[in-house]
């Protein structure tokens, strides 16, 4: 499997796991998806449509980060440690870019970085989780497809 495609699919799956988290929260499932739209300053009036568009955008973003992950590997075999570390770096980048900078700009906050403890706690670990999942899924597929190619 080509590295880019594997990265893309790993990114989509990792963001799908993030989306799944919204189904074990209190309240109606999918309520967190419109938050993805708010990173870009978008709002959709219809709540159902807003959830679906938010989910789609989350998957697209996951795929984009996965593509970046795949592109950085340049077709080389990765060790587990390197996959997880690179994934972690992608998670931190996700948090900085989307949850901090972009969200601050589109919400027109006076400071570019507007964080309190609760905001940090609700966003940073999940962004890191995305990164770890991206690296781990990419790594597990590498082992799977590597062994299939060898046999």
């Amino acid at each position: 499997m080509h590295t880019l495609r594997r990265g893309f699919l790993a990114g989509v799956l990792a963001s799908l796991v993030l989306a799944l988290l919204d189904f074990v929260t209190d309240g109606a499932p999918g309520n967190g998806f419109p938050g993805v739209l708010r990173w870009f300053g978008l709002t959709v009036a219809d709540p159902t449509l807003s959830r679906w568009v938010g989910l789609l955008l989350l998957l697209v973003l996951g795929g984009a980060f996965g593509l970046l992950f795949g592109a950085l590997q340049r077709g080389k075999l990765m060790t587990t440690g390197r996959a997880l570390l690179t994934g972690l770096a992608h998670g931190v980048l996700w948090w900085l870019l989307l949850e901090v900078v972009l969200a601050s700009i589109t919400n027109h906050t006076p400071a570019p970085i507007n964080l309190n403890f609760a905001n940090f706690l609700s966003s940073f670990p999940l962004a890191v989780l995305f990164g770890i999942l991206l690296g781990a899924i990419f790594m597990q597929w590498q082992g799977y497809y590597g062994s299939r190619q060898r046999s």
Partner: protein
Amino acid sequence: MSISSSAHKPQGAAATASQEGVMAPPITLSERSSTGLALLRILVGYLWFQQLFWKLPPTFAGLYSYVVRESQHAILPGYGTLLQHTFLAGCPSLSSPKGCTAFVPLAACVWSAELLVAISLLFGLFTRFGALLATVLSVQLYVGLAYTEWIWTYGMLVLLALVFVAVPAGRRLGVDLWLTPRLEAAGQHHRLARIASWFV
């Protein structure tokens, strides 16, 4: 099980057939099952993570009413008294933690333990340790709150945590994927690494 048919087989085969009869067949988790369990681990970790937000530091005020309830309805005799002399020591009111001497430091311990469980299960980092800690916390909730709500919900929480003590669910989609072979290799020479390898 039949051993009569093995009389016509070579001795080795007869022994194998006999072993098949008396020994339980080994269980091997497939890659899909392991990954599925890892996904469940993440979802359970998120449940713990989400419950951090209604009792945030520095006051941990959300926890107070639950500790009061535990002190009044615990299923173990003496547990309520223990809570009254630790968490609720010196508390002038049952509606607010203001004035309590030990509530904030002890609540900080509970909150930190729950944060550890969430991090451990979400990231698959020393997952079995996290699950063990989750079991202890769940048992505590069961003892303190089971009479105030549906008993089985807290019982299920204990059982769910025990599943992840039993199954190494962090070795897929988690950091334990990287830690396990290293700790096992180091465990052949270092006792501490061997002990740490029990928790991945």
